[in-house]
């Protein structure tokens, strides 16, 4: 089984990520992360096929997270793909899903990602990461400790540094 980083630990991944041209039949095998296009075209069929099972959906950088707002409660996983290294739309998508749309389930980043992006993506609300094959996941965990603080607000830290400083009397 493939591995991924979830909540800063390397764990086995029991989910299957379906390709852009996936069908409802493929999704019916359970624990599938379906592409947004399939979700949009076959929503009812996917819900029926899943039954009481779990559902996941994935978005590309250009996809609009607002499109799945009404269904967020149905998803155990929402995944966002960086199709190219350096595609920073994923960072904004993560923040929108967490902060604006209040998504509480697993938020997974995958695609052309390096360990050097882990901490920032976590700050944007992601809690699960599938990195490029070339990355050693155990080594990559160190990246979460690279910076001890930040000026801005983040998913973990809703107060910017200046408000926290003030509260701490610094």
């Amino acid at each position: 089984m493939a591995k991924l980083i979830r909540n800063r630990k390397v764990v086995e991944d029991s989910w299957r990520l379906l390709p852009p041209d996936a069908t409802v039949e493929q999704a019916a095998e359970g624990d599938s992360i379906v592409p947004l296009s399939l979700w949009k075209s076959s929503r009812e069929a996917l819900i029926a096929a899943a039954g009481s099972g779990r559902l996941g959906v994935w978005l590309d950088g250009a996809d609009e997270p607002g499109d799945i707002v009404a269904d967020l409660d149905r998803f155990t996983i929402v995944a966002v793909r960086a199709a190219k290294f350096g595609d920073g739309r994923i960072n904004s998508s993560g923040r929108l899903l967490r902060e604006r749309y209040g998504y509480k389930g697993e938020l997974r980043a995958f695609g052309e990602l390096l360990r050097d992006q882990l901490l920032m993506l976590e700050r944007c609300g992601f809690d699960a990461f599938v990195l490029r094959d070339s990355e050693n996941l155990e080594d990559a965990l160190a990246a979460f400790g690279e910076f001890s603080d930040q000026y801005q607000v983040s998913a973990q830290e809703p107060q910017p540094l200046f408000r926290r400083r003030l509260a701490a009397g610094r």
Partner: protein
Amino acid sequence: MYQYDPIDQNLVDERVHQFRGQTSRYLAGTLGEDEFRQLRLRNGLYVQRHAPMLRVAIPYGMLASRQLRQLALIARRWDRGYGHFTTRQNIQFNWIALKDAPDVLASLAEVQMHAIQTSGNCVRNITSDPFAGIAPDEVVDPLVWCEILRQWSTFHPEFNWLPRKFKIAVSGSPEDRAAILVHDIGIAAVRNGAGETGFRVAVGGGLGRTPLVGHVIREFLPWQHLLTYMDAILRVYNLHGRRDNLYKARIKILVKELGPEVFARDVEAEWAHLRDGPATLIQEEVDRVGARFTQPAYETLAATMPEIEALIASDKGFAAWCRRNVHPHRVAGYAAVTLSLKKTGVPPGDATADEMDRIAALADRFSFGEMRITHEQNIVLADVRRRDLKALWDEAKALGMATPNVGLLTNIICCPGGDFCALANARSIPVAEAIQRRFDDLDYLLDIGEIDLNISGCINACGHHHVGHIGVLGVDKQGEEFYQVQVGGAQGTAASIGKVLGPAFSQEEIPDVVQQLIDLYIEQRDSDAERFIDVVRRIGIEPFKERVYGKADKKSQGGRGQLETAAS
């Protein structure tokens, strides 16, 4: 000068550590070339013609003498003994070996400096008015806002992988000396009728391949909302800016394609979700950041010094220097002084390590140990007692930095060009030099009056040629260096983009062309009060074209006609 607190320092130190790791992964072969490239760019390192080049941030141009001494040390120890001050208030070193880069960054961190986000597709060094905080015409001191923006932009989790680089400039005076309208975001700090501080926000300006003047999308943004509004602009850009074409990825293209009104509406819609959120600024924070700036201990002095005024009356050289390189100060008895890095024969903006040490000594002796790097690639000592002007002039002359040419033709803004830059189409430094040699008579220069001449070695426009009153652009014509000339560009509140005169010229022709433009200007001006740019605006560029190329019927004569395509 802003002083880091322990958290500021820690973040910079952690960045050095992170980069050390990235460099060793790359050198060990576990991090690919292209990925490492993106990471090193965010630390100011990119590969130039000779070696990796390191670009160090000088946030909003403010530099302390101990920092300049450290830059001198870096130049000696890891480079070839000099550095190049850029048009973006940075300093570049051209000869740093990659394996040394982490050590160089560590030595920068020792003096509260860094190279964070000086390159790559992220928010770059914030630039500002070199006279910030001391200009008599200033409405709002922009420095505290610059530092607040520096912190906001540093390692912003959401905006570290933008479609393209992103430049922000801040000004606090009605006269814009920070070229804010040719930045991705230009912020003018203003006061409203009730005396409250706020910002007029322009977006979508920029030079490069598609030069555009920015559009104001908000006339008055109350200061509390500065960061949430920035977040809104950047989010709209991050999500919707083009990522398919490098040349169309800047925010100016998005603003142009959507139209400024639609773009502004999108920003307002995004901001509606963010405004009044936790990132809303509070007075305590503005006060805290303000208090971390050291304040010069000004003495109470008379506004004028009889000895200095007498010397101005009797010594022509001193008078010329005072007129061009000495600038007014809001505190009586003080002045700001420009040390010129535009000596003929030296690449504009270059300084050797020894010069850096000596400039640092001048800053200690005359200006509270602080200075500013200007986007015109000079150095300003901002807090000089007027009574010290003569002593400073003598020292500056000895250093070859008293060329009284600020605002004049020979104060050329010039990028490193083909001598150093891998992207160049043509060399720019020898062109600057040739022009400076042609116009080396001070009386003549003073007679010509205020004029900006800017040179870029390629369309990336690091020498800001589009906003020079005269702009020179290096172009490539079948492997040969040629130069396009444009006139009518300007920075400041009446910013405009210059228009190309016509077919490109060879390097040798450029001084003559500039001479012809100047001659026509002198013939046409109403009085010396009418500057070159005023004449261009009044009579248009046609007469300038005619002067340079002759009447239309002569155009095809000589070898020039065949170059027409190269120039278009």
